[in-house]
């Protein structure tokens, strides 16, 4: 039935029964469909809508372990063939790309004109712009540059019934109608399939450096007052990321908490800030620094620390990643709590968090039977501070044992209303998002 409906929608060569019947991360499909154009995406969704089939869109598959309790949908819509730059206007500093284009590919094309996409999500080699925007993924540099909601200026979205709806536009400033793009950013594929994404760009800074400040004594009051001094200064760090001892060890073979401070600006401005930071670092701080390509290399290693759907299969199942949102300064206490709780639960925990942007991430390794209890304690700690904790990666088996998203947020009935208005038949990524949306 499903097969017949889809074969009418798309050329036979672009559809196949799933190569593997199951996937350890779930979010699989009975059929894998590989559209190459927006028309083909629309045709597949139209058929799915008509026959009430479920569809899970997927880009590079890095976020396959994020949300959802479905073993498989009827259709896994693989967007990896919808790739490439549609329109790039360096003079306007805007680009329109197809959803299946990887972050790396976009970066390489923009670099030719000295420009960049100011987003630093994880696994840029595999992660696609569609997936990054759909999951609202971001990295430490959002401190300075912001996140997807600050860069996306327009979308082409294939609605769950196959209609193509444009949101926003192609200009950097635009308040015509509702800011509909925001609804799709971070919607986890539950409101349709983005086919094209238009983004604001920035010039590549001429100079970049990374200072790694290590605090072997874990003197938290001293770290806190240093961070406050930086935030209250006129310095303009691009990241102010706290690394937990285990992550610091994994990245640089040293023990203790550390701060990764990225500086990106003209050369004089970068040197001046380096000097300022070194002069103001607390006594006993060990400072290492990397410049230009070396700094970039450090970050590219960092972006691969995360367990993801492209990690080796044994890691995918045995690791869990959490995303924690809080007030900026609470990151300090939360990263420490995550580390301490790891020791108590007998789990290896690598964590980091942005002082100044409020997003922390924790990578947990060990006995998956202990994950739920660990999550519960981390979540309580975050919620006590007005924040939240969600599971960003875990195997399907683990996800089914715990609450990935936590309790429904304020305004949840409005969110259900939005879902009903756009996807009344629950075609797109059913049950993948908060509260079972």
């Amino acid at each position, binding site marked *: 039935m499903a097969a017949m409906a889809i074969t009418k929608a798309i050329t036979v060569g672009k559809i196949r029964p799933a190569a593997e019947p199951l996937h350890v991360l779930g979010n699989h499909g009975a059929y894998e469909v590989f559209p190459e154009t927006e028309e083909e995406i629309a045709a597949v969704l139209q058929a799915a809508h008509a026959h009430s089939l479920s569809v899970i869109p997927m880009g590079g598959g890095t976020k396959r372990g994020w949300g959802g309790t479905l073993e498989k949908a009827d259709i896994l819509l693989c967007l990896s063939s919808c790739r490439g730059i549609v329109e790039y206007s*360096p*003079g*306007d500093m805007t680009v329109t790309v197809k959803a299946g284009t990887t972050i790396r590919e976009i970066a390489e094309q923009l670099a030719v004109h*000295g420009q960049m996409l100011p987003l630093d999500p994880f696994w840029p080699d595999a992660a696609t712009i569609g997936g990054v925007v759909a999951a609202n993924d971001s990295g430490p540099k959002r401190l300075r540059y*912001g*996140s997807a*909601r*600050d860069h996306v200026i327009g979308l082409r979205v294939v*609605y769950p*019934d196959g*209609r193509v*709806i444009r949101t926003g*536009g*192609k*200009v950097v*400033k*635009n*308040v*015509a*109608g*509702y*800011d*509909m*793009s*925001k*609804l799709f950013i*971070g*919607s986890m594929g539950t409101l349709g399939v983005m086919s094209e994404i238009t983004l604001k760009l920035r*010039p*590549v800074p*001429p100079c970049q450096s990374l200072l790694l400040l290590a605090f072997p004594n874990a003197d938290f009051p001293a770290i806190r007052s240093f961070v406050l001094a930086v*935030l*209250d200064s*006129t*310095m*303009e760090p691009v990241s102010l990321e706290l690394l937990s001892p285990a992550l610091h060890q994994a990245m640089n073979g040293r023990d203790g908490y550390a701060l990764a401070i990225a500086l990106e*600006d*003209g050369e*004089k401005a970068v040197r*001046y800030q380096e000097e300022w930071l070194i002069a103001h670092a607390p006594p006993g701080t060990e400072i290492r620094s990397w410049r230009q390509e070396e700094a970039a290399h450090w970050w590219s290693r960092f972006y691969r620390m995360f367990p993801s759907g492209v990690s080796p299969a044994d890691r995918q199942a045995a690791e869990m990643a959490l*995303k924690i*949102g*809080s*007030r*900026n300064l609470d990151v300090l206490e939360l990263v420490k709590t995550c580390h301490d709780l790891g020791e108590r639960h007998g789990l290896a925990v690598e964590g980091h968090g942005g002082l100044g*942007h*409020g997003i922390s991430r924790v990578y947990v390794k060990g006995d998956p039977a202990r994950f739920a209890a660990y999550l519960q304690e981390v979540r309580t700690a975050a919620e006590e501070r007005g*924040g939240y904790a969600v599971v960003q990666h875990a195997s399907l088996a683990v996800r089914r044992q715990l609450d990935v*998203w936590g309790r*429904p947020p*304020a*305004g949840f009935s*409005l*969110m259900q209303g*939005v879902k*009903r*208005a756009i996807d*009344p*038949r629950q075609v797109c990524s059913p049950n993948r998002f*908060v509260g079972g949306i």
Partner: protein
Amino acid sequence: MAAIDPLVRELSQIVGPDAVLYRREDLIAYECDGYTVRKQPPRAVVFPSCTAEVSAVVKHLHERHIPFIPRGAGTGLSGGAIPLGGEVIISLVRMKRLLHVDYENRLAVVEPGFVNLKLTNAVAAKGYYYAPDPSSQYACTIGGNVAENAGGAHCLKYGVTTNHVLGLEVVLADGEIVEIGGVPDTPGYDLLGLLTGSEGTLGIVTKITVRILKNPEGKKTVLAYFDSVEEASRAVSDIVAAGIVPAALEMMDKTAIEGVEAGNYPVGHPKGLEALLLIEVDGISAGIDDQIARIVEVCQNRNVSEVKVAASEEERARWWANRKTAFPAMGAISPDYLVQDGVIPRSRLPEVLEKISRISARSGLRIANVFHAGDGNLHPLILFDARIPGETERAVQVGSEVLKACADAGGSITGEHGVGIEKKEEMRYIFTDEEIAAQIGIRDVFNPQNLLNPDKLFPKPGRCAEMRTAPGEAR
């Protein structure tokens, strides 16, 4: 004398008799906002003093199916706060407290009636500021800024209101109070982003958490005079192409310069100029001189007739006062003016400006251009005389033609002023009926009876749109 509307008595019981206006003479001030082409009095104006009162008023109106409009300072330029028939205006100006400043986490919590510039003034002593700076910032409220997703001259580098709002308390169309956001990336759909810029049609904002920023270490401002609009426009693209992100990049043409020089804050620009650029760079002081040198070089390559750097803070402030009062300054050279708000890709500035000048010539109405060139946000000021029969209509028509030119160049009909009632029909220049219907589908989730600021933002539905939203499930 006509009997008092019973609704007035009911509302007085909620907010107190001194917080309701209903006499005809008291309602005149609420007939319009900054868009003065159309006027109509509201049924009444209420002034709640807290969220609970807003909620109670809304509940009362909702139960009786009486439409209502939230209003801040009334500085909006697209008619978003203008009644169209029988609405009650809920004015938020009594809710004007700064509730909380958290310097460690760089945020401030304000009530919706708190004036934009007051926030910067309140945190200035510690070296902080609130970034969105619409030209009306001395009067406009942050609640209104959220409703309109207001911009300003410095949005080129720092973004518009939506990039600075961290959390909202909102009274929904039925009076329910919800708090959204607060910490970044809260799980669920981004209601914060959707509500910002929804022009008072999705909810009434009663508390706002915004980001505050540290003042940049250094700041320099350049004024560049050109003998040709085209060369000035090309200089704008060249500056951006050189990898510089100025904090602001503003342009004025000949007519606009004539206006500001006749206004209250003349700078003494030389006579006979075709265009000027006002360019500001900020950031780490050590890097600024290099950027200024690049900008000067770019301008010279584009045959700038004079380029100078502000020698003092006083000079810089004078240049900005001259620019920021450009709209009212037009009053010195024209009895009336209508401001438009189109956006284009900045690389297409020369051709669109040329088109606008042809529209001006054809209509016989002068158009002054003063705008945020860096982000391609044009503000053509259409000069007219309302006393001449038919000229107001002609000005409105010219505005619409200008927006068509922007839309045709791949742009938008509004960059920061909103759609309101002014640009409802022009929504069709950039969205299909189906796309407009999709937006109305979202409005219906929040505002199912269309009581909240009705008949704003969207054109009268096209036949096709009616058909396409009607599979029965979308509501």
